[in-house]
């Protein structure tokens, strides 16, 4: 019904416009015609639909396109100077104004993140790595050297389609994570000093990175006891036990340096063992698993990670968060259950195969289809995706510098989360019974921040930044929509196809046309149409 109405309006508006522009000599360009489901897949699996990526999906089919994406290697994130983790030594008083920004904030890595997100071929890999970066969080707010944060981001890109067990091990031994959650130089108990092993990583690797606080059924529902109380996954003793397991690791040895019991900060490679700092007593960890006395740090760690990664919660706990990051914030229990099953076994006996899980999430019947009418379906877009969505749809070429800055003012600078709890909680519930994690970043202040960033990108994208080496600035060609600057009907049709997979109603189209027709024809039409639709509530929600 809706589709019929808008089609009627579409031709009517077109006729009206053609009459108004009868002096136009050349034939009007044909509006974009795109498969709605292919556009939806592009919105879920990339940093924003473009006519080209949608055409690629249509031509290959969804599953083959995903399979090709799973094989695409990571984009190059760049290499950054290895510096001592000491601001005063590296950037003493009198050093250049950019020394601190370039070496001790993730600014340059963020610019590379946006360059790759906007134009890289490995769209799905980057999208999944971005989702993982919001689960296994490391933040440049605490891990200062930029090269260390970049190394961590590369780890996530590399492991995005591997097994979760491997990811968990690489994350656990990452010096950036070691620094962030204090597993680095975490020593066995010292009775003389009265110190206990640090509980920070032990707690969060379970609470946030793998199983969560309460036992889950495969469909994500909470396991309760006879009185209806949720059953916890672990208690404080399991945290203390795991904290003891995780003793005896220090920073990797920088080439040319001498091994010490606490190596100085160095963020390339994995943390290394210092057996003398490892607690060799027996420990009890998650689920009552016994770690026998006298094991090496490596053996203790392997047993603990096997126990955690093997826990029944990991599939529903992490799988559901990936569904929320890619497809819909309120998936049905059945959808979560199907993903948990793939998590448990990818069909080849492999557990936690992230590539297979992502493929199943995107090909699930709850993800696919031309239109979703369930009133709770969809996800509020992350600010990062709003930025990249605009850039990809409207032909933005950029060095990423403006985007790095804009992501900060929109409260989602990648790899610069305020805390290990990410930019928003996964269970943020702005309305009754309606989870919407990214809604935590949408408030009355951010409404204007977003509109004002869109305005700047559309109307006056900033040129090269003299303080950044090789900066080329940001340019906008209006991309797939550029041809429609003299045909407002085709313009609105094309916006509808590319950004709304054909769901704009006749009244929405009329509102956009009113805004367009008040501007002089040409690029201003495209900018005006883009501005009013990008700031609309409908664009902020992917469904």
């Amino acid at each position, binding site marked *: 019904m809706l589709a019929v109405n808008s089609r009627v309006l579409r031709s009517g508006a077109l006729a009206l416009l053609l009459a108004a522009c009868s002096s136009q000599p050349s034939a009007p360009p044909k509006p974009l015609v795109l498969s709605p489901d292919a556009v939806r897949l592009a919105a879920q699996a990339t940093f924003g639909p473009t006519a080209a990526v949608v055409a690629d999906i249509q031509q290959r089919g969804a599953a083959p396109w995903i399979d090709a994406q799973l094989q695409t290697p990571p984009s190059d994130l760049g290499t950054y100077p290895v510096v001592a983790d000491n601001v005063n030594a590296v950037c003493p008083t009198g050093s250049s104004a950019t020394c601190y920004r370039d070496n001790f904030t993730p600014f340059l890595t963020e610019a590379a993140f946006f360059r790759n997100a906007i134009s890289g071929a490995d769209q799905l890999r980057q999208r999944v790595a971005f989702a993982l970066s919001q689960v296994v969080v490391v933040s440049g707010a605490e891990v200062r050297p930029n090269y260390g944060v970049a190394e961590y981001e590369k780890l996530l890109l590399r492991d995005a389609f591997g097994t979760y067990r491997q990811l968990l091990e690489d994350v656990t031994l990452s010096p950036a994570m070691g620094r962030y959650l204090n597993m680095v130089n975490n020593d066995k108990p*010292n009775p003389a000093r009265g110190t206990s092993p*640090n509980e920070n990583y032990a707690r969060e690797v379970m609470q946030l990175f793998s199983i969560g606080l309460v036992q889950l059924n495969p469909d994500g529902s909470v396991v309760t006891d006879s009185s209806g109380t949720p059953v916890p996954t672990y208690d404080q003793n399991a945290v203390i036990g795991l904290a003891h397991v995780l*003793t005896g690791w220090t920073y990797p040895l920088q080439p040319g340096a001498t091994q010490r019991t606490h190596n100085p900060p160095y963020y390339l490679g994995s943390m290394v063992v210092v057996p003398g700092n490892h607690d060799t007593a027996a420990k009890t960890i998650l689920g009552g698993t016994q770690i026998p006395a006298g094991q090496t740090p490596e053996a203790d760690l392997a047993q603990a990670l096997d126990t955690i990664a093997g826990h029944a919660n990991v599939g529903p706990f992490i799988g559901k968060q990936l569904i929320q990051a890619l497809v819909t914030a309120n998936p049905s229990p059945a959808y979560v259950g199907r993903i948990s099953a793939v998590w448990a076994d990818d069909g080849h006996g492999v557990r936690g195969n992230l590539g297979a899980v992502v493929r199943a999430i995107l090909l699930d019947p709850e993800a696919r289809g031309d239109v979703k009418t369930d009133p709770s379906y969809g996800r509020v877009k992350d600010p990062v995706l709003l930025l990249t969505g605009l850039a990809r749809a409207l032909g933005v070429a950029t060095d990423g510098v403006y985007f790095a800055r804009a992501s900060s003012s929109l409260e989602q600078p990648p790899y610069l989360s305020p805390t290990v709890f990410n930019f928003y909680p996964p269970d943020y519930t702005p309305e009754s019974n*309606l989870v919407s994690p990214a809604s935590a970043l949408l408030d009355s202040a951010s409404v*204007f921040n977003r509109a004002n960033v869109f305005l700047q990108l559309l109307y006056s994208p900033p040129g090269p930044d003299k303080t950044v080496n090789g900066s080329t600035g940001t340019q906008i060609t209006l991309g797939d929509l550029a041809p429609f600057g003299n045909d407002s009907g085709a313009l609105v049709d094309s916006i509808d196809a590319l950004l709304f997979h054909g769901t704009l109603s006749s*009244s929405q189209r009329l509102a956009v046309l009113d805004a367009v027709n008040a501007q002089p024809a040409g690029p201003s039409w495209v900018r005006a149409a883009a501005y*009013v639709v990008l700031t609309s509530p409908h664009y902020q929600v992917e469904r």
Partner: protein
Amino acid sequence: MRISRRDVLSGLSMIGLSAGLLGGRRTAHAAGDDYRALVCVFLFGGNDGNNMVVPVDARYSDYATARRQPTDGGLALAMDQLLPLAPASGPAQYGFHPSMPELQQLWNQGALAVMFNVGTLVAPTSKADDSAGRVPRPESLMSHQDQQNQWQTSLPDRPSRTGWGGRLADQLPSAPLPPLVSVAGNVLFALGTSSHPLAVPTAGGATFGLSGFSSSPGSRALVTAMTALRGLDLDNALIQSVAGETAAAFAASGMLSPVLAGTGSTTDALFQSQPSVLGDQLLQVARIIEARSVLGATRQIFFVAIGGFDTHNDQLNRQAPLLAEVSSSLSAFYTATVQLGVASQVTTFTLSDFGRTLAPASGGGSDHAWGNHHLVLGGAVQGRQTYGTFPTLALGGPDDFTAQGRWLPTTSTDQYAATLARWFGVAPGDLGAVLPNLGRFASADLGFLG
């Protein structure tokens, strides 16, 4: 269309508010009205209260023994560095962290009180009750997220999508602006059942309105289309939610954007000596309070926040600058309320995830714990006093439910919140709607607000 960045849309004309209407409001709410405001300062990460307020009497040795010396990887502050908190008569029993001289001064002036060992509690408990499992512990004790949430909901035994600030706002009559204003984004504290908070940018931050718009027909057409689009086809609940947030922002922008830009503010200078994350937020609060008559506000609840208190390592170096920022910015804010003549109408208080272990952790830090000490500031505060019960600083002692110095709270968040809510004007009979678990605790008034 010409979009000029100099033509910043104030929004006043856009939403049809005339100067005459504003003038009318100013008259209706002249100074001397019964304006009251609560200002919640959240210390995210779990502030180590054990080093914020330290006994300086005979109990100091318990403290120093358990905390260990810094030369030994410990956390003990030296006795002679603590800032004594002398009561109205008699010797000081406690001292502040050395980074808090401004708050020591406010203590001496009688504007600041310290509330000991508050925490999330399902019901009153004791070490015996707790270890026997007679009183259930809060859900997910020692988890940041959960304990942050429970401090904000004061419902540690159940999930809640509303916070006690929001439920407090639910009690208020309708006003031109939402009574709850966060300068730190969306927070659970601020969500009510019927009321919805505003979030505003920090001072010196973004504009609270559209930039670059003029009164040209092209500009106006854009705004008209935006207004139309956010009212259309709200069949999806997420879209409806975003549309509601957007509409609320535009509705408030006209009145608030000049205030938030500092137009007419007389307190800016007080905050300029120490620009900081917290100070910039509190400046925004001061500006809104100064404009309360223009805004037609008689009851307001504010939320500001500062993070970084999760000091698992290197705590001595990391907590000091944070407490210094709390001290200097709270002091600037209090001075602003004095200057505006509303010091006794504004009460500021702290919340935080939880306290931290008294015993140090590997790396010179401390781990997650439970009960914690808090600050209450304002002209109405019965200051220069401590409230509640200070825990026995012994590892494994009568207040420690573990062996690392984690305090069983002796006062609940319900009682703390109820004391503030009563002062704010909630009738005793309505406190249960704000704090459903309050009836489980002996006193609904801890006395720090007279």
